[in-house]
């Protein structure tokens, strides 16, 4: 077993609160879609939407997948795949001119 000390997992009530938070974030995302349609926020819209998605991602991985309560080995493996994928495809899309086009 591990010598590391981990905080206790959330209670069912806390899981429900996290679900409400995720639902609210999703509602804000959808609202952003319509606000952007009306006001054309350009790159500000992309930044807000990607930030909200990133926040939801972190919440699900950290609390529902319990990664923040697990051994650091698991975090390292998981992060490695994510960072590798983000780096690789950012390079590829930049090289192919997709991100340059989107970035104006």
């Amino acid at each position, binding site marked *: 077993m591990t010598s590391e000390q981990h905080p206790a997992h959330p209670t069912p009530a806390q899981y429900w609160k996290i679900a409400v938070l995720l639902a609210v974030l999703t509602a804000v995302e959808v609202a952003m879609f319509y606000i952007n349609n009306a006001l054309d926020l350009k790159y500000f819209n*992309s930044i807000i939407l990607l930030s909200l998605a990133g926040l939801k991602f972190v919440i699900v991985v950290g609390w529902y997948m319990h990664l923040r309560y697990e051994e650091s080995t698991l975090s390292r493996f998981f992060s490695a795949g994510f960072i590798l994928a983000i780096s690789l495809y950012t390079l590829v899309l930049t090289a192919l001119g997709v991100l340059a086009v989107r970035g104006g």
Partner: protein
Amino acid sequence: MSDLAHDAAVDLGHPEQESTGVENRKLGMWVFLSSEFLFFGALISTYLLYSNRAGFQGTYPAEVYDIPFTSVSSFVLLMSSLTMVLAHNALSGNDQNGARTWLFATAALGAIFLAGQVFEFTEFIVEAGMTLSSNPAASAFYVLTGFHGAHVAIGVIMLLSLWGMSRRKEGLSERQGMNLELVGLYWHFVDIIWIIIFTVVYLLSIRPA
């Protein structure tokens, strides 16, 4: 781990651990999920590459999205992560009835999401005339969301298998409890991939300038 220690661990029903301090199957699942980022990253990149490229014949995916409908589907899948973690929590407290109920709820929500995807695809093909071979952007859209749907379908099958096992008199054993945790990890991963797809593909609605 020595052979003796290994045998003892198996005999006592304890999880097998290596020098990492993590149960082998759990580590394997996390590594598998980590590799899935590359798989879905390739599909998302392909979609981004073609969705803003002008000059293709036929309908572009961003022209036919039904955002209210997909938002409800996304909400359903998000809530299935809640029921999944409640199933895991119930089994941790040896609440077999609770685990059984939440497992079934998770499978049902997954099935509802899949039904929504089938409906969405049907609408796109029949109403909008956007098929898999309409243009590269449409192909990339169907392949990306279709592979995600296939992952959800596999998850639903695994959930229903666990639910079937949980209905036996003795309920889910400690080892099957680990199976539930692994299926849970897979299910949450499918959810986080959809979080990315919903934002990047649907809400950003990238189309040719």
